[in-house]
């Protein structure tokens, strides 16, 4: 099998940086983990505070610039840079597979798809999940079988390296001096198996949700929600965006930025009518969209079990609890 010694990681990183813009997990002074292309690489992390989705769907981006004048100009701004994301977790890789479904289809989204096409993923399997991780229930982890180009597994002082795509194979071949071929069958046995302790009951969830549109359960459970956007902004599968114009005089840009179904303004129409006017409507939309509507449309739950929304909610709203508890009666 192919291995990568831990002491070679930073050398490999330096080498990759010559050809690619490389993003990897970093930890700041306050302990927040996010993907960045500067700072020290941190691979012994459980999961990043912010998912790497912003590398593909940035929180804000300019879709085009416009210039009014004698001649009216529109300039689209699609970024094409070769990139590598190193150290992405299996759940987050799966979130990208879900986002791919949204941003392709009858209409192709060039902004997202260009980034996807030009980015290689070097994932890292989970050996020490967080207490809020429940990926095993959604079959998105803790080990990765598809979606990345290369998968690493922590085996103590080295990583085992599996290539899942042609692109991944090429990458390893091109940088072969950083990798070693060894027979390490006994090491595989040493592989720590990730223990997922959190549970979610997904049994008949579609039917249960179908039957509980009118359930008083929602009034109860939504009362403490603050309608902030933590759960949606930290969710690796939430993709909703807003588009607005920013301009001064004759020049300006159309930007798109994340939006959240938790905000009242998300569904409020000009003129003031809001089809989802209450906290309850908004929380229901989030849960139904993740565990029913998205499944009806794309054939998957829009949840990868990363547990970020559970961990970060300031009032302890727990989607696993809601999904497990909700009943039609």
């Amino acid at each position, binding site marked *: 099998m192919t291995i990568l010694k831990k002491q070679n990681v930073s050398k490999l990183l330096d080498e990759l940086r010559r050809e690619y813009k490389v993003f990897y997990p970093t930890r700041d002074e306050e302990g927040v983990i996010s993907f960045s292309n500067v700072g020290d690489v941190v691979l012994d992390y459980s999961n990043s505070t912010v998912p790497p989705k912003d590398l593909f769907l*940035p*929180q*804000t*981006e*300019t879709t085009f610039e416009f210039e009014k004048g004698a001649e009216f100009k529109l300039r689209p701004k699609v*970024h094409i*840079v070769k990139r590598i994301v190193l150290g992405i977790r299996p759940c987050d890789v799966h979130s990208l597979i879900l986002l791919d479904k949204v941003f392709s289809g009858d209409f192709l989204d060039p902004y997202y798809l260009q980034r996807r096409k030009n980015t290689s993923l070097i994932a890292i399997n989970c050996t020490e999940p967080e207490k809020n991780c429940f990926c095993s229930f959604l079959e998105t982890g803790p080990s990765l079988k598809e979606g990345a180009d290369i998968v690493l597994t922590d085996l103590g002082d080295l990583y085992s390296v599996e290539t899942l795509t042609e692109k991944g194979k090429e990458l390893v071949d091109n940088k072969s001096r950083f990798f070693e071929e060894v027979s390490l069958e006994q090491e595989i046995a040493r592989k720590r198996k990730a223990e997922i302790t959190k549970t979610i009951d997904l049994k008949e969830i579609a039917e249960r949700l179908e039957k509980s549109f009118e359930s008083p359960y929602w009034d109860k459970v939504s009362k403490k929600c603050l309608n902030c956007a933590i759960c949606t902004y930290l969710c690796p599968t939430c993709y909703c965006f807003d588009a607005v114009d920013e301009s001064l005089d004759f020049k300006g*840009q159309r930007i798109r930025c994340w939006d959240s179904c938790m905000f009242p303004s998300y569904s409020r129409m000009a003129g003031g009518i809001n089809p989802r006017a209450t906290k309850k409507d908004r929380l229901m939309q989030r849960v139904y969209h993740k565990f029913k509507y998205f499944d009806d449309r794309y054939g998957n739950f829009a949840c990868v079990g990363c547990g970020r929304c559970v961990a970060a909610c300031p009032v302890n709203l727990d989607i696993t609890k809601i999904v497990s508890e909700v009943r039609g009666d």
Partner: protein
Amino acid sequence: MKEEPRIIGFLCNWCSYAGADLAGISRIKYPPNLKAIRVMCTGRLNPLFVLKSFQMGADGVLVAGCHPGDCHYTSGNMHARRRMAVMRRLLDYMGIDKRRFRVEWVSASEGTKFAGVVEEMTDELKKLGPLKAWRAKNEKNE
């Protein structure tokens, strides 16, 4: 070319704006660095006005209104005095030097005082240099 300091002045309609006018018609020389925005009263000033000015490229902000006790609306400037005191300290705490945000009381007859304030402030801002940090950047690194 050295960048000239840019000052946004929020001037009360009933006093400082007229004071600025008087400085003009009396041909008192003062630096052209101040762009005046007339407000009906310093009490009208929302903290956002000041923040937005810095964000849009101002190096300094001047708020000028009627002397305490002389407000056209009785007490607008008295309220402003409290708010601006808090604002000034807050901005300083956030890294905007106190000298970049000035509050002055200038009556309609004080053309000379107005010119003096602008001159002083311009000189001070020249020494401090441009305030680039707060200006809106339009592109996050990709």
